[in-house]
């Protein structure tokens, strides 16, 4: 599927999400469960802020020298007998891959979970070629068997489905006869997928991190599916977003440590695979032929601009798991394979404001995303910046709104400032408040209240309310 999912209007998607009570409770318990594990893993490690700063400095350095590291990577992959194709557009990428598929006369392709191949709509292209494409990540497999439903979460793609729904899908499509126990469902998938790995012509993966110094690719999973995808088929194609690169193994390990803790609260996931080129002489497993496709697809336009820091992202989804808006509307509401705060920042950049103009507004700017980001992307500030850009680009906003936004931008610029600001606001605003509205505000609010009323700051801050409410939900 392409990055864009569905053709529903934003409002309708959100309505669907809000009315899906299973999905909402699944998302809530996922957020709480993963959130707590993430926090525990960060606390146990200690020095978490220093780790985040290290993650940030590595990612910033790489982005500032991206051409250098990509050149080094490509040289080293080629030295080991691999092929490297630089694709500026998704069409260039899919066309190159399609040609390999044709040349190999491939009929079956096994894939391990990859957001970037979703972004370039790769499966549809391959299926058009008459190939059977098999997703091997359990969550992705479930969605694929269920008529290619789109993922709703970056790391738990089938989060919105309950086990009875999975049982129903397996029964209908795979001749499954057992119960809705996750163990039995997973075992059935294992048996089905073993056959697929062993008979596939091509393996396909995304890339968590590419290592420039050695030309290696690092893949992070818990299921071990990426290992079989990279070990069994004769041809392997890896697609990477061009920014997913580190200088050496030493930076790789830091980012892997941040990724696994932030994504699932694990010190390391069960399988971290670092492969370099095709199999060596006399080796009998691993690919004979290796292709690395490095994708731009709009990323370079983000470089050098005010949104550059979004390219620091290592796709851990900690921001998704911390986001109160995602909690209530679910992943499909974003209309993009990239959901949550990262999706709300990235989707308009890669897919344009026309399709994603609502996303930067689907945010409370509470800053919870920024606080958990392991590489310190100022996510809520970038959301705010999107609003600024849209208002200025459209040219429709009254100067008063711009001023009000600038003022808010200052107050929301750091979680700490925001906390202080929103804590003192009710008191500070008292003299100007009539009932629950402010009709003639001071300073920057004055411009706003000249044309409309501004809701008075709540006595209970949203963040406190949200925290307390989450506690109450689980008593």
């Amino acid at each position, binding site marked *: 599927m392409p990055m864009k999912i569905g053709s529903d209007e934003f409002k309708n998607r959100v309505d669907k999400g809000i009315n899906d009570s299973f999905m909402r409770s699944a998302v809530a318990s996922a957020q709480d469960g993963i959130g707590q594990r993430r926090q525990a893993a960060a606390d146990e490690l200690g020095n978490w802020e220093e780790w985040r700063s290290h993650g940030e400095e590595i990612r910033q350095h790489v982005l500032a020298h991206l051409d250098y590291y990509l050149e080094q990577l*490509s040289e080293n992959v080629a030295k080991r007998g691999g092929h490297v194709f630089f694709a500026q557009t998704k069409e260039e990428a899919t066309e190159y891959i399609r040609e390999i598929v044709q*040349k190999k006369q491939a009929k079956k392709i096994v894939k391990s979970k990859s957001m970037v191949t979703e972004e370039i709509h790769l499966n549809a292209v391959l299926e058009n070629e008459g190939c059977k494409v098999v997703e091997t990540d359990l969550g992705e497999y479930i969605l694929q068997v269920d008529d290619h439903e789109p993922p709703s979460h970056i790391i738990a793609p089938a*989060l919105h489905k309950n086990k009875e729904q999975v049982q129903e899908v397996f029964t209908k499509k795979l001749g499954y006869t057992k119960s809705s126990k996750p163990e039995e469902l997973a075992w059935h*998938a294992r048996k089905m997928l073993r056959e697929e790995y062993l008979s596939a012509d091509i393996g396909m993966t995304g890339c968590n991190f590419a290592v420039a110094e050695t030309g290696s690719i690092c893949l992070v999973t818990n299921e*071990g599916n990426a290992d079989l995808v990279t070990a069994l088929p004769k041809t392997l194609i890896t697609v990477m977003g061009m920014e997913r690169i580190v200088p050496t193994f030493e930076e790789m390990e830091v980012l892997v*440590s941040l990724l696994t803790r932030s994504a699932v609260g694990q010190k390391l996931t069960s399988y971290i*695979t670092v492969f370099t080129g095709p199999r060596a002489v006399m080796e009998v497993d691993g690919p004979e032929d290796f292709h690395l496709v490095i994708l731009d697809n709009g990323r370079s336009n983000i470089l050098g601009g005010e949104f550059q820091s979004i390219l620091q992202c290592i796709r851990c989804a900690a921001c998704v798991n911390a986001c109160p808006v995602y909690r209530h509307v679910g992943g499909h509401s974003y209309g993009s394979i990239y959901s949550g705060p990262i999706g709300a920042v990235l989707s308009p950049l890669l897919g344009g404001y026309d399709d994603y103009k609502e996303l930067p507004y689907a945010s409370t700017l509470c800053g919870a995303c920024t606080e958990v980001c392991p590489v310190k992307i100022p996510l809520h500030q970038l959301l705010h910046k999107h609003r600024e850009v849209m208002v200025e680009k459209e040219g429709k906003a009254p100067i008063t709104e711009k001023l009000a936004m600038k003022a808010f931008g200052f107050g929301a610029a750091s979680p700490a400032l925001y906390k202080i600001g929103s804590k003192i606001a009710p008191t500070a605003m008292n003299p100007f408040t009539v009932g629950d509205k402010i009709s003639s505000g001071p300073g920057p609010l004055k411009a706003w209240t000249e044309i409309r009323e501004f809701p008075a700051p709540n006595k209970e801050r949203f963040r406190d309310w949200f925290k307390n409410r989450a506690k109450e939900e689980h008593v």
Partner: protein
Amino acid sequence: MMESAIQNRDRFLDQIANRLGRERMIAHLERPKWKYRPQEEVLKNATQDELVDVLKEQCKKIHTSICITELKHLPAALNDVVSAYGGDPIITWKDERFSRWGLDSLLKVEWASYEWNPAKEEENIKLAEKANIGITICEITLAESGTVVLFTDKNKGRTVSFLPAAYIALIPKSSLVPRITQAAVKMREIYHTTGQVPSCINFITGPSNSADIELKLVVGVHGPVKAHYIVINDL
């Protein structure tokens, strides 16, 4: 289309340099001296014995059983685990250490055991798929995360640790390091000394698992369902 190993590079990298507002970088770039190094603080100054304790504790969290043995008791220890996992067929790497560690009578006589053999090509994978247990030796062991690090070569197939239903890792105590940081340093050392890295390095932390259905943990998805570590105390 596949004549050249690297395609479309210049146009692509020129665009990046252009966006970054400078010329393409040509001169060699030294690895930066990072401002932060928190990774070096973890389990700093821990002794090998302390690292074994950390590993044992971590194994509880990763659904992996562990035992510690002297080399002379290794055959008995391995025999216990293999029996508990339902016995042969077994597949191992081709590695002279198995023999040196006194395991010949088990691997070559007692059990239906196959030793990886590059000359037999595809046959290796078929046998790995049929094996009940895969046994390999760990090059580096990460105490913090409970991870064994395996280096592939022609005698050490990747699938030995993935395809069988159960997996056993033999761990010389001296291979224990605090965390993945030290493994990364060692991997770079290997690269700088030999100019090569193994075609595949696997970091394995317990059996395969998934929480993709209702976030309920299922142990044993694509890879092994069970995993056991044997730490050899005097190696």
